[in-house]
């Protein structure tokens, strides 16, 4: 008989080890899944995890790594702050869309004027758009006690409809020969978010992601606000006695994660994606939730988790090309990773005792 004994403090050793264990378990379970789909599991795992980094065309894929990891890290860094405080913003996808729309709208309004101020203005607009979309659930929760989980999620669908409307309506390229979608910002020098160092995939969004990682790290481990956020998440009653205002906390966390998600969307639409279409959003807002948990809601962890998750995207694309593995298989793979992670987390919080547990 195995009994569980709660640890007085979460184990530091296991909190570092469980993500690694979860990744290994996912690889095994994923291998089984690939075998069921009739693919060679070892080859599939190699194509997904090894070839993009060290395979024959690795130089190209390594660049893609940062392109995919940038938005994931940027969004997850913001989400993790809220998750730490027990504030669940799961509508990052919507904030990402609105940020992209806001940024692109500024650029398209200014078209074809060239100015050094345009790109900074787009950055501000993107952050502001995401912030506003994040503040809706925050304000509703503060004023009325509405669940931020449900509201932020509902707003994803609202944002998606809004995006479709914009792509077919006001933002549609007037010279697009009737095709849906906006002008391509990659062909508009002032608004373009270019690759900064050729071949690396580094663009301003990736820079912003690194800045966000450092900033949230400092915030959470060196600043009183971060301490308050952690207390509020771990011991809400104690936090209230310590004078933490729940209202301020909700607004801060949802506003911050909204702004960062909005930024991610804006950098994406001005850079790698280039134009607003009704389906330009690739689900980064949802995958970022996995990234945040895989990184143990810790800034440095998120950096690594974002890179790993980006690898599964790129490897998944490669596996689709080379082995005919369906794209959805990668989505299942990412979902499994989160399951294993949450399951193994037991080891961080509890001690396993084999034999008769002392009650």
């Amino acid at each position, binding site marked *: 008989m195995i009994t569980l004994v709660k640890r007085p403090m979460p184990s530091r050793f296991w909190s570092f080890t469980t993500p690694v264990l979860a990744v290994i378990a996912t690889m095994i379970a994923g291998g089984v899944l690939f075998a069921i789909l009739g693919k060679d599991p070892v080859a599939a795992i190699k194509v997904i995890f090894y070839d993009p980094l060290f395979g024959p065309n690795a130089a190209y894929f390594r660049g893609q790594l940062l392109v995919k990891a940038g938005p994931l890290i940027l969004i997850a860094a913001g989400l993790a702050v809220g998750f730490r405080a027990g504030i669940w913003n799961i509508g990052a996808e919507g904030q990402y869309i609105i940020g992209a729309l806001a940024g692109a709208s500024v650029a398209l309004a200014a078209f074809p004027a060239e100015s050094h101020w345009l790109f900074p203005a787009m950055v501000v607009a993107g952050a502001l758009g995401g912030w506003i979309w994040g503040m809706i659930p925050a304000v509703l929760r503060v004023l009325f006690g509405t669940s931020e989980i449900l509201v932020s999620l509902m707003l*994803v669908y609202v944002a998606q409809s809004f995006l479709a409307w914009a792509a077919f309506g006001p933002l549609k390229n007037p010279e697009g020969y009737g095709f849906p979608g906006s002008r391509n910002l990659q062909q508009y020098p002032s608004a373009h978010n270019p690759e900064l160092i050729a071949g690396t995939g580094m663009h301003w969004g990736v820079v912003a992601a690194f800045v966000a990682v450092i900033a949230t790290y400092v915030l959470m481990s060196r600043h009183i606000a971060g301490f308050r956020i952690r207390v509020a998440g771990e011991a809400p009653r104690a936090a209230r006695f310590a004078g933490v205002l729940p209202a301020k906390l909700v607004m801060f966390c949802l506003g911050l994660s909204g702004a960062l998600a909005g930024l991610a969307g804006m950098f994406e639409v001005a850079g790698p994606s280039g134009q607003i279409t009704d389906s330009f959003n690739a689900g980064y807002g949802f995958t970022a939730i996995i990234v945040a948990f895989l990184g143990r809601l810790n800034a440095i962890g998120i950096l690594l988790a974002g890179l790993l998750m980006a690898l599964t995207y790129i490897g998944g694309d490669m596996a689709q090309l080379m082995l005919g593995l369906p794209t*959805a298989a990668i989505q299942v793979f990412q979902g499994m990773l989160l399951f294993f992670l949450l399951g193994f987390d037991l080891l961080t919080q509890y001690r396993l005792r084999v034999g008769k547990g002392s009650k």
Partner: protein
Amino acid sequence: MIGGIDIVTLIAALMAASTPVLLAATGELVAEKAGVLNLGVEGMMIVGAVAGFAMAVTTGSPVLGFAGGALAGALLACLFALLTQVFLSNQTATGLALTLFGLGLSALVGKGFEGVRPPPTGKMPFGPLADLPVIGPILFGHDWMVYVSLALVAGVWAFLKYARLGLILRAVGENHDAAHALGYRVIALRCAALAFGGALAGLGGAYLSLVRVPQWTEGMTAGAGWIALAIVVFASWRAERVLIGAYMFGGITALQLQLQAAGYAIPVHFLTMAPYVITVLVLVILSATHRHGAPAAPAALGRSFHASS
């Protein structure tokens, strides 16, 4: 006819439009009454949708299809139960994981079923009753699943209100420590409630793919699972109000579709937005009015139970 909208058709359409969310919300109600918050409704629904569809298409029987959908939803819920009840993981995070996993899994399984038509689900044979004016199409003109869903709501209502097991379930949801001290098996009961909730979510999903749409498309639940969660909140955790909530929501969806068909000069994208915006508004109104009333949520909702703590 009011403004190009046929009221009888609207009410008849409303009942079919509400059935998926009604089923899912009723299932979630039972799980939440037992004190477990399963945010994976969307994932269970979509897996139910694809499993039910695949089952119905391969066997040619919609009945087996619905059974398959319910089973798939229940299996996914068991996974959630294993993680949250045995491995004591965070319920919010695990629910999200279930949704993300379910969306991926359904897309994977559904690849071979795109563009296929499912076998038709039969209408309930009411004979001449269905030909009655007004009442006929509203009350007697539906497929049998609509009546099953109504029976399930009534069953859940009676179970929670009158059955001894229902009382125990509610006790577990209100105070799991006290229930445990009285000798009730908290974990087992919660797992059962979750499985039941998953089965109903799967059934709701299968209704979407087999009757409502009827075909399989990726991501076809489009937030219906989340709306089901919102309806449970709206219903203040009471079965009879779940019915009202789901039918209100279904009414908005049906009205929205009819407005599109009637050719009103409202952009389509704003109409598709409407159900989600209205869900948010209803949540706001409800939270605002309930602020100072008695808290309606089960007291142990979302909290893990560990016997030695």
